[in-house]
């Protein structure tokens, strides 16, 4: 082993001297090197022999070098490589020199004491390499691009197309552009920043720079103390997304991870309460949804991944509240499906923690409490939309296949992910759900009223969404009215104050469902799956009520609705229209289809997406959406 190393070193010496041919003209290997090698091989050489050997070695090396130039020329390269030299060696039946195949220049080091030159051969820590986060990018595919360089012998029409790889080098123009833009965006002049961002949004020739900008954006981690910079980086992201000439490809992932960082991480900037990191999170969450809805189809399984990471943050009680806030925002941004499938099942668990925070009136807790209110607000917004959307598309909640079908019926030409017009939540859940593992699977059995009731338990009157079931069995069974009319609702707070707004906590003790009031030790017992949540709840509550509610409310609806469903699928217009009518549970079965179809024929085709909804707003038997 040692011998080989030595041999290598001597070879290195010779190669080294070869580089200095200009001065010395030829390789010269001192006889000392030869002797050293002989020694390491266990042979003693006399000076004469060593000198002769040295001379011969020099000659052979020269010969090999000359031969190697032939390989250089035929490889149509400019620089002689070790590879060329090895080929020459091989063809003259000499063992090749191994270990110097790297295209990078070899750095030589001199060891003064031993008068030895050798290439630096640093130890490589394989473990470190394997676990390193910056995994080297794979080689891009070899490709051929064609462009017209000169037309009729005149002029460069356009620059030689961009090289689709981060490995490529940039032309000077692009490099300049890159420097100017980054400087402008991250610099002090807001006007300049605007211009730069505007250009990023519209420039069609910056494809080659995309990896660089993505890299810049990934710098969020290093500036987490500076809200301003973070904000600007996010603006870059926004511009890149909006640029129609860029194909983000797999860079979407990188961008999303940068944005998620801003959404979720306890940024250094948020230590200071004066910093408005909330806005940043809002903005990042907005961006997240934007990226996701416009470019989400570029990466498969993205939705799932994002949900997982959001959920991870949400269920981690150790995380600061601002992280939770971000997670809720993120879920909200991903659509009501995400809220339903991640936030809603965890709400009960989470609520207790939040409650604890909000209940603590100590001064030291003031700041945390303020944060808690933020989270509370975010959750409230999220679940309100969830309720709203559930109401709009109730079938989604009850039948897993429904969203897809209704979606297909609505817009058959658009893939679920690409339909920007679609309300959040349409389709995407159904689209990615099958691949979901580790995520709570959406319960098909949670009915809207059930959900509403639970949420109302938590939020009470803070919930801006109201449902009414008029003469429905709901109110009658329940005894207390859950009806949407504002005055009616008033009773409800007394029922569930324990989980309501903090200011109402005083009433908690008199809540009729006191035994069920939030107690931390009970929380884990609540199953994570939404379906089981519902079930356990309903059983633990006043026994007779919930099941019967479900039965009546749902069954009747189901039976009456099913024929309508087949109809909905049949046509887009009809399907849309039906949204407003979905809750007409009391209608006799035979009324439904005929009525709808007749109605559909009468309506103009364009621009009536929401009208039917309005139409039913005042109906006694409907749910209405105040928003």
């Amino acid at each position, binding site marked *: 082993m040692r011998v080989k190393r030595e041999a290598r070193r001597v070879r290195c010496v010779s190669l080294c001297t070869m580089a200095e041919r200009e001065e010395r003209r030829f390789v010269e290997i001192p006889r000392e090197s030869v002797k050293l090698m002989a020694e390491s091989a266990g042979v003693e050489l006399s000076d004469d022999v060593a000198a002769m050997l040295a001379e011969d070695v020099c000659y052979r090396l020269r010969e090999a070098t000359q031969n190697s130039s032939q390989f250089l020329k035929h490889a149509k390269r400019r620089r002689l490589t070790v590879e060329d030299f090895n080929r020459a060696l091989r063809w003259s039946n000499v063992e090749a020199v191994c270990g110097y195949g790297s295209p990078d220049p070899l750095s030589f080091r001199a060891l003064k004491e031993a008068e030895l030159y050798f290439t630096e051969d640093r130890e490589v820590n394989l473990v470190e390499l394997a676990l390193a986060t910056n995994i080297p990018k794979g080689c891009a595919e070899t490709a051929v691009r064609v462009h*017209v360089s000169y037309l009729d012998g005149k002029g460069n029409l356009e620059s030689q197309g961009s090289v689709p790889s981060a490995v*490529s080098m940039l032309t000077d123009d692009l490099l300049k552009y890159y420097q100017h833009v980054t400087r402008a965006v991250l610099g002090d002049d807001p006007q300049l920043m605007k211009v730069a961002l505007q250009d990023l949004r519209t420039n069609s020739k910056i494809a080659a720079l995309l990896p660089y900008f993505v890299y810049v954006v990934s710098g969020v981690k290093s500036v987490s103390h500076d809200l301003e910079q973070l904000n600007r980086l996010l603006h870059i992201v926004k511009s890149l997304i909006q640029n129609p000439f860029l194909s983000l490809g797999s860079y979407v992932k990188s961008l999303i991870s940068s944005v998620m960082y801003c959404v979720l991480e306890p940024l250094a900037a948020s230590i200071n309460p004066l910093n408005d990191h909330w806005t940043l999170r809002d903005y990042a969450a907005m961006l997240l949804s934007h990226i996701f809805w416009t470019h989400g189809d570029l990466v498969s399984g993205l939705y799932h991944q994002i949900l997982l990471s959001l959920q991870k943050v949400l269920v981690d009680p150790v995380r600061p509240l601002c992280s939770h806030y971000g997670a809720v925002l993120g879920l909200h941004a991903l659509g009501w499906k995400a809220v339903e499938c991640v936030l809603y099942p965890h709400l009960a668990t989470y609520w207790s923690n939040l409650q604890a925070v909000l209940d603590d009136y100590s001064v030291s807790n003031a700041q945390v409490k303020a944060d808690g209110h933020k989270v509370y607000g975010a959750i409230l917004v999220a679940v309100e939309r969830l309720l709203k959307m559930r109401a709009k598309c109730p079938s989604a909640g009850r039948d897993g296949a429904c969203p897809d079908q209704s979606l297909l019926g609505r817009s058959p030409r658009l893939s679920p992910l690409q339909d920007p017009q679609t309300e959040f939540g349409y389709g995407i859940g159904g689209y990615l759900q099958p691949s979901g593992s580790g995520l709570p699977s959406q319960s098909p059995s949670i009915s809207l009223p059930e959900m509403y009731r639970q949420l109302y338990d938590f939020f009470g009157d803070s919930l801006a969404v109201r449902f009414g079931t008029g003469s429905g069995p709901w109110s009658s069974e329940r005894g207390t009215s859950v009806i949407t009319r504002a005055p009616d609702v008033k009773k409800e707070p007394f029922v569930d104050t324990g989980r309501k707004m903090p200011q109402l906590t005083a009433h908690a003790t008199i809540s009729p469902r006191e035994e069920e009031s939030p107690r931390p030790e009970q929380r884990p017992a609540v199953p994570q799956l939404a379906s089981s949540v519902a079930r356990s709840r309903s059983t633990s509550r006043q026994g007779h009520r919930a099941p019967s509610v479900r039965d009546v409310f749902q069954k009747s609806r189901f039976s009456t609705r099913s024929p309508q469903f087949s109809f909905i699928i049949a046509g887009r217009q009809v399907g849309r229209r039906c949204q407003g009518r979905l809750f007409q549970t009391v209608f006799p079965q035979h009324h439904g289809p005929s009525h709808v179809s007749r109605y559909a024929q009468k309506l103009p085709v364009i621009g009536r997406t929401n009208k039917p909804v309005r139409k039913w707003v005042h109906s006694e038997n409907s749910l209405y959406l105040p928003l």
Partner: protein
Amino acid sequence: MAALPEDANETESKSDLEVKVEIKVESDNAENEAGDGNNVNSSVSNNNNSGGHHANNGGSCGVENGSCNSQPPPLPPAPLPPLQVAATTPIPSPAPQSALPESQDRQTLLAVLHFLRKSNLKESEEILRREAGLPKCADYSLSPGGESEGTDASLLSRVTAAVGGGAGATVSASSSAAAAAAAVPAAGKGSGVSAQDQPDVSAVLSAYTQQGDPAKYEEYYSGLKRFIESVLDCHRAELSQLFYPLFVHMYLELVYNQHENEAKAFFEKFHGDQECYYQDDLRVLAGLTKQEHMRGNETMLDFRTSKFVLRISRDSYQLLKRHLQERQNNQIWSIVQEHLYIDIFDGMPRSKQQIDAMVGSLAGEAKREANKAKVFFGLLKEPEIELPPDDEDEEGENEEGKPKKKKPKKDSMGSKSKKQDPHAPPQNRIPLPELKDSDKLDKIMNMKEATKRVRLGPDCLPSICFYTFLNAYQGLTAVDLTDDSSLLAGGFADSTVRVWTVTPKKLRSVKAASDLGLIDKESDDVLERIMDEKTASESKILHGHSGPVYGTSFSPDRNYLLSSSEDGTIRLWSLQTFTCLVGYKGHNYPVWDTQFSPFGYYFISGGHDRVARLWATDHYQPLRIFAGHLADVTCTRFHPNSNYVATGSSDRTVRLWDVLNGNCVRIFTGHKGPIHSLSFSPNGKFLATGATDGRVLLWDIGHGLMVGELKAHTNTVYALRFSRDGEILASGSMDNTVRFWDAVKVFEDLETDDFTAATGHVNLPESSQDYLLGTYMTKSTPVTHLHFTRRNLLLAVGAYVPQ
């Protein structure tokens, strides 16, 4: 068909394994082509009969045919009368072999015998001895006219070098007897000398055993130098040519006689006087300081065994002779006599400029008689093609409203091709494959395209389309485009060959055999049905070589692709199945270039073993071996009429070889560096060559003259191409530029009178700037290939090099 591969396998045991594998692949993949088997079979037997002149060769010929013949269409339906018929009787060929110095030949032969004995190849030695007694024993004619010394030298070195790898064409190391048998005829060819005693390698080397006093060498040399500097200007330039060869030989003599220090001193003192274009050789020379070094150094071996050719006018020669005889300068005189060949001409001494234009090669200029042979440089008559499909098309165009414009044109073209070019070779001088229907269609397409061709000229330069290889980390080493510019092949240093389609039509493979059985063979679109849609892609990668791929070439019918590699093989790939069909072994050393004949079927290859070989796709041994270059054959090109091939070499010469008889018919000297690109003008009259010195030289093939020197490139010229009508020459180089040259002007400006034609002296204009029509830069992409589409759009290809 079924019987054939078995046959091949049986006989294969003797030949290499590689081919056997190929056959299996082939027979698996190409079952649909079984129909061709019969034809091939007959050609095999025929071959055996005709080629059976030499027992050894005939035998292996049969084998190879068996192995390759599943190889379908390029085969002409009538068995191709192998060239061996002509080759086996090289006597009638005009090769001036009689001019060969007998002693030289004998020495070579002895050296070979010695080598054989040393390697324990008794049997072969005996064969050689026996063969040497015969007047002619060659199974393929190798001797180039006029350069036989060179041939011998390179052969010798080849045999010497073959100790490890096995020599000759088809030799595998395992069968030493076969190896020797193959090597012997190769070496023994052309040397009609009976075997003699004392075979000894040193006999060849001993040319240098000199009696002279080593200390006096410097004196001799400087004496001559003083003399040459004192003569009249007109003679000085001519006599200065002597410096370099004398310097080299004197130095080598010193080294050989082990006067190491004197040699060093001699070198130090005079190497500065030599012309700058000998720098490379001097560098090699400087490394040689010991006698034993000389033994293995092939370059020097060539230098000593081949005569350095000088062209000197009679007057100057007389002057020199008188001087040397007066001074009793025997040392120099004997070198002149022994190692130099002075080609004396009558007339005015040449100017320094004239000389500089022509010298520079490893072994001096070409002798005048080397370029005297008649060359049929004209084009073959275009076959007459009925135009039924064309008529249809014309009808279509008629409807579109340009009715009679095309007709007259077509007629004129037709008549043009009907006229027999006086310089053209007889139509059947070389047996060519018959045109298939698809070929005819292609020709029609070509003619149609030609009518839409842009007429280029100094005022109308072509547009350039650049195909840039991106992310070619593995190193792009070879490129080829099909004639119709539809496919692009790249050879890479990582041993792969990649084929791209550059049209929207995707590349598809033929379906697997089992699926092919299900196809309705009667249907009209059966050709479409056999393709497997699932395999459609823009590019395909061909794996098979085990070294960088240095040459690629598409067959004219676009069904095949050739690739030559560092691993010593040339491979034939099917572009229907994207598999390798045949591996042609023979070079045993890196094969630098390969090219299909413009008519398909034949191909030429050249490599590090200093020979170029002519092959036919259905023979796995070469049909011809063109030996004569003193160094690697770096590039090879077919003449448009397929009767000649041009080879460029790192000995800085270009040679033109006659395919029919294997003779070297032209030697072009003048390049100062290894030649890396060749291109024939479309009319076959001219040849353009580019070298590492960045210069492009133009040659008149008929007269054997240099007709132009184009200087502008600053780095190796790797690509040369004439426009379709020959008006413009495009050159592409490592210096990241494409340049256009006015070829018409170059050829017009040339004043060729009888004197120039007789002496080969041309006056080239000082500057070539007048001819340069344009320089076009790429950003950072060396230009490795150029191609004019049928409409005269220039396609350039190169790999982007990140700085």
